[in-house]
């Protein structure tokens, strides 16, 4: 017999709902209202229907061009940092000691970048990368590389990516380490008896056991990198030109810089929808992976 789902416990969520109403639902409704109108301030609004959405999704307009370009940059950025951070995090986790006092040392060192606020990370790397006074920038230029993140697009991208890898690989490593710790020694002993190679142990024991934490890591890193604002804004300000302007930076430029509330509202709704869909897909995969459901049984 199938389990009956009872949803009555949701009434216990009402107090949270009241708080969220003021912090999220009312603002979100306002954004929906703004996305349909144009304003010149002073609470005077003019109906525009789906005009902003039309402009937003049409690459030939200014708004659409900027949105789609920044969306492309953002997806590229997320793909690059995931491709670097996930394998790197696994390697770091695998090479960490499994017992002894060095475990604590490793954990503290790994946790350090995670404790630094985003804007401070940005400031650190902004100064670190400066060709005149920064250690990294000065060293690179002394070695003959023409490195300048303010004027060269490639250098700006490299700086932002290395900064993100520096900041967040620890998170992936710590999650993977937690997954590795949960593997009983018996698995390794069995593998040793069977004469399994290092690669076979990784593929057959460690990777499957890290499956769930890796999904969480990928989800967290994707969401964070897709919504990234502070670090690139502090380091490059979205430049040179628009080369490191990600969606959130573009959004703030439109909403607060130009005070185009309608355009910004339409952009943030589409942005929100993308994040919502990705979140849902990841959440569904995460909660269903590895839970093998028995096929529907017949009689008896």
């Amino acid at each position: 017999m199938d389990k009956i789902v009872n949803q009555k416990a949701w009434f216990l969520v009402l107090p949270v709902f009241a708080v969220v109403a003021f912090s999220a639902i009312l603002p979100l409704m306002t954004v929906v209202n703004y996305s349909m109108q144009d304003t010149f301030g002073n609470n005077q609004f003019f109906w525009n229907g789906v005009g902003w959405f039309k402009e937003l999704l049409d690459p030939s307009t200014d708004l659409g061009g900027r949105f789609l370009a920044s969306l492309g940059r953002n997806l590229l950025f997320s793909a690059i940092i995931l491709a670097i951070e996930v394998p790197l995090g696994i390697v770091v986790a695998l090479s960490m000691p499994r017992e002894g006092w060095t475990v604590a040392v490793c954990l503290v060192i790994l946790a350090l970048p995670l404790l630094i606020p985003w804007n401070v990370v940005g400031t650190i790397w902004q100064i670190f990368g400066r060709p005149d006074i920064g250690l990294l920038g000065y060293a690179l230029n002394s070695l003959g590389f023409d490195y300048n993140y303010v004027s060269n697009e490639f250098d700006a991208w490299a700086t932002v990516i290395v900064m993100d890898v520096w900041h967040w690989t620890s998170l992936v490593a710590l999650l993977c380490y937690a997954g590795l710790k949960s593997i009983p020694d018996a698995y390794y002993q069995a593998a040793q008896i069977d004469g399994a190679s290092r690669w076979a142990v990784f593929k057959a024991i460690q990777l499957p056991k890290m499956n769930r934490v890796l999904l969480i890591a990928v989800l967290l890193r994707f969401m964070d990198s897709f919504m990234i604002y502070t670090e690139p804004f502090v380091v490059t300000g979205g430049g040179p030109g628009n080369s490191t302007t990600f969606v959130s930076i573009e959004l703030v430029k439109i909403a607060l810089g130009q005070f185009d509330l309608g355009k910004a509202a339409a952009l943030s709704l589409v942005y929100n929808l993308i994040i919502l869909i990705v979140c849902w897909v990841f959440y569904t995969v995460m909660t269903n992976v590895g839970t093998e459901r028995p096929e529907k049984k017949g009689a008896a």
Partner: protein
Amino acid sequence: MENIAWMAWTLPTAIFFVMLALTLGVMTWLGIAYPEAERVGILRIPTTRGDRLFISLVTAAVIHLLWIAFVGTDPLLTLPIGEGVEISSLWLATLISLVSAVAIFRTV
């Protein structure tokens, strides 16, 4: 009304949110009056009515955005009311969304 002027309410958006709230209300009542079991559909994931509503709403949003992007919102026909009321072709997207919602509720 003066102190919520910043929320910029309009009749269409108000109707939209009222209908959304009504839908959620009806779903809540359904959940209490007729408790249901999760079931596995074509997506191979267990879903409740609420899950299927969520998928339908997100699908509807995506359908409307794709329609605006690739088909546009040219008027479909003009109703002979007053000076003529234009019906945007976006309503076709709404129609497709409704059909897809029915499909999602039946198969997912």
